[in-house]
């Protein structure tokens, strides 16, 4: 099996998000970058699948050279090789077009993405790739397996869960619960140094969107404390003052 894992490089989850240049840019100064947590799950699942069924795992990222350190971490976790498409990841549609080109040229049995990236929260990659490749796409998977030449999934649906099967090739996105993310060990870190990281140039695509301005959430007013011995008052306040419950 040949599996491609699409990886985005995002600010660490503890990052305090701020903006610069009159709020037109994300302020990356001093920010630690990590593998998008959902992509970490799809990478781990891809490794589990190839360990069981044989095959290779390639990681693909659209990004500039500063992404390489994070890509090496994915190689240390166990991916066989990586490609970086050398461009600023403008938006989801741009990224999907780049990766789809690579997939068309190289052929894969399965492509995994994360449910969404925790920075731009697009949640589009899986279905965009499915459309660009005319493949089936299965979102928010909590289990992925391959049996008798078919992929078997459990996925979240609105208000429940569903088991579905799909023909290959297929693109699927990882939801929390898919697996426990692997942490690189010393051997993996050493091996990662010499694993292939291929840098390829981007193709040109029609501009889809332009980010013009960012805004931080409004700061809250000071909390209004209610005495613990009078806790029931909270319900009265929510009913009669805030009028937020019936």
């Amino acid at each position, binding site marked *: 099996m040949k599996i491609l894992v699409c990886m985005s490089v995002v600010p660490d989850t*503890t990052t305090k998000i701020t903006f610069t240049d009159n709020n037109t840019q994300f302020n990356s100064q001093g920010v630690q970058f990590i593998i998008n947590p959902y992509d970490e799950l799809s990478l781990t699942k891809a490794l589990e699948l190839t360990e069981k069924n044989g095959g290779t795992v390639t990681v693909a990222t659209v990004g500039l050279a500063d992404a390489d350190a994070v890509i090496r971490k994915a190689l240390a976790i166990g991916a066989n090789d990586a490609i970086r498409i050398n461009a600023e990841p403008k938006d989801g549609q741009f990224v999907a077009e780049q990766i789809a080109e690579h997939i068309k040229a190289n052929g894969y049995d399965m492509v995994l993405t994360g449910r969404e990236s925790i920075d731009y929260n697009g949640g589009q990659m899986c*279905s965009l790739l*499915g459309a660009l490749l005319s493949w089936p*796409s299965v979102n928010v998977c909590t289990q992925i397996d391959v049996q008798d030449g078919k992929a078997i999934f459990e996925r979240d649906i609105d208000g429940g*869960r569903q088991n*579905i099967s799909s023909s290959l090739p297929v693109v699927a996105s990882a939801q929390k619960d898919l697996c426990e993310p692997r942490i690189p060990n010393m051997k993996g870190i050493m091996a990662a140094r010499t694993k292939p990281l291929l840098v390829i140039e981007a193709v040109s695509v029609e501009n889809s*969107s332009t980010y013009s*301005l960012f805004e931080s959430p409004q700061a809250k007013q000071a*909390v209004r404390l209610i005495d613990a011995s009078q806790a029931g008052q909270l319900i009265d306040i929510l009913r009669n003052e805030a009028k937020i419950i019936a």
Partner: protein
Amino acid sequence: MTGIYAENSEGIFKKSVLEAASYASKIQNGPVTAICVGKPKDGEADKLAKYGVNKLIVIEGLDFFDAQLYANAVTKTIENSGIKTLVIANTYEAKSIAPRIAVGMNASLATNVIAYPDMSNGFTVKRGVFSGKGFAYVKLEKANKIVAITPNSTDLIENNQSISIENTATEQINASTQILSTSKSAGKIPLTEAEVVVSAGRGMKGPENWIMVEELADLLGAATACSKPVSDMGWRPHNEHVGQTGITIKPNLYIAIGISGAIQHLAGVSSSKIIVAINKDPEAPFFKAADYGIVGDAFEILPQLIQAAKNR
């Protein structure tokens, strides 16, 4: 022309669909067309009519949800009806099909949209980014556009229309996917749709103590949620986990019990209109993000809240 995709939830159009209808007819400044897959129940079309829809196109012939076939059928209907801007509620189903429709109709796509667009210079939407830690204004550049709006972000705007219903059949094509089984958490309010959410963390000590959390939630008509460690330890199902790596929610009221208020947790809930924090530690970071707070032991406070909720 503006249209909406009206997600058909077992024959019902949920509130988020009516929000999409209101949004679409507001930007169209007039009535809009809705597209759904499968016949809705009697009276459901009238709900759409109340919020500005004057035409419903029902796609027939797809017996189960396959993202590819749904998206292809909807794309074709969009082309035939001349829709240039499609509004859709940002649910799991939307995430499965909106990007595919965007490719099909060559549209710019914005998800997580939380406000009406600024159309004074092109079409600029405000969307949630950085998992609740920021917002971005994004201009959609292509002539065709898809706007996926976060449920509970925009208003229901009444704009009564008389509605006509048109049926259109799809050609029979075999799906690449097959549904093996479906399980729904019956009777429970889905977290992403809930207007009130009662959430609890490791401070509840063990899964057996959720009886109180659930009782309060029932009394308030609320959904239940939890922090990450609580779902990691298996005290609660993972689909209740809210936060940066869980579900992002924005209910009218979020009550957090025994949750410290770590930055990753707050990311998923800080857009809630009113936040209540209950924690025995006065220094818990949640109090900085809360509108109301009670410093004290959850095991003493919950019974009082349950009692007060019963008295009316």
